[in-house]
């Protein structure tokens, strides 16, 4: 799992991080299409570095999954009416969150393969367990948020308070999971994450679909960052940190909770 400090891998990670930063810069400057292409190139570089640095045992299945997923994404991206596209961006956030959740679950089921066991105690390394819990929790929150965006109804203050409370409870469960990595705790954490994501995004929906999308995207970003720490992959940690920080702060600004500048018109496309 640990790629170490191989110069080729470090160069690939640095290039991917540079491409991610450049894409964000271009999108902020109004060049969305060019930024999207460069961001896609960053993910491709990261994928190439991963295939270069690992002993791949299931290449045919991985290619099949990549192609099938790409076809599914193209079908959704091309087939959905343009007016419905913003809500479907939330679906993509949910898909990324669910993928992070599955990565955390796979590492939990098979810690030997990812070198997550402590040689002295024969238990899982505390830091890895915390990253696993955070990845699963934030992934579940992104899924819950995506479901809420698709439903788009109801009041906001109750679910918001409920979501904040459950988010704190989820933090406690992550801590509990770090001490006792049992399935019940993991399942409970995922369930709490789903409900917390639902509540937080429902509160953000009051300001429009744009802030809700940014909130769900922020959760997915943090889940990706946690998976980066779990798998000790710098590219994933950078991508998750960039996406999580950008989307979370932007959601807070759009909702008027930080830097009140009347930004709540971002839901105009909805």
């Amino acid at each position: 799992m640990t790629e170490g400090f191989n110069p080729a891998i470090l160069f690939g990670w640095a290039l991917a991080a540079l491409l991610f930063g450049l894409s964000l810069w271009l999108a902020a400057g109004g060049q969305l299409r060019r930024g999207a292409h460069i961001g896609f190139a960053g993910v491709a570089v990261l994928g190439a570095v991963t295939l270069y640095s690992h002993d791949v045992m299931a290449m045919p299945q991985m290619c099949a999954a990549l192609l099938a997923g790409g076809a599914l994404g193209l079908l959704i991206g091309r087939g959905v009416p343009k007016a419905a596209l913003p809500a479907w961006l939330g679906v993509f956030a949910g898909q990324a969150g669910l993928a992070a959740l599955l990565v955390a679950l796979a590492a939990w089921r098979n810690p030997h393969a990812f070198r997550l066991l402590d040689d002295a105690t024969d238990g899982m390394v505390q830091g890895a367990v915390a990253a696993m819990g955070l990845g699963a929790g934030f992934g579940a929150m992104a899924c819950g948020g995506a479901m809420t965006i698709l439903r788009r109804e109801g009041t906001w203050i109750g679910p918001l308070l409920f979501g904040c409370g459950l988010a704190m409870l989820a933090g406690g469960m992550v801590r509990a999971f770090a001490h006792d990595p049992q399935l019940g705790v993991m399942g409970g954490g995922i369930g709490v994450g789903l409900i917390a994501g639902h509540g937080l995004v429902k509160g953000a929906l009051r300001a429009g679909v744009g802030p809700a999308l940014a909130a769900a995207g922020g959760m997915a970003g943090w889940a990706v960052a946690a998976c980066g720490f779990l798998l000790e992959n710098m590219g994933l940690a950078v991508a998750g940190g960039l996406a999580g920080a950008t989307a979370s702060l932007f959601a807070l600004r759009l909702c008027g909770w930080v830097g009140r500048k009347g930004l709540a018109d971002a839901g105009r496309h909805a």
Partner: protein
Amino acid sequence: MTLFLLISFLAACAMGLIAGWRARPDEGWALVALVQIIYAAIVVGGLIVAAEAGSALARNLGLLAVLLGSAALCGGLVAARRLDRP
């Protein structure tokens, strides 16, 4: 390795915070669509899991993560291109 990861992560967070703070509301959809492509990098996490998993269940979970991440990546790219069109 962890310190190296942490420094990179914190630098990325700082850059993300600057981007999120400076973005204008009329660029909101561009930013959200682009961030969506960046976090679709989770497909790489799925690739790592599928490549290194020692059990069939873990490998299948990794392959499912690859499928979902790939769908999010390609769908997000197409959606961003369509949103950019007037």
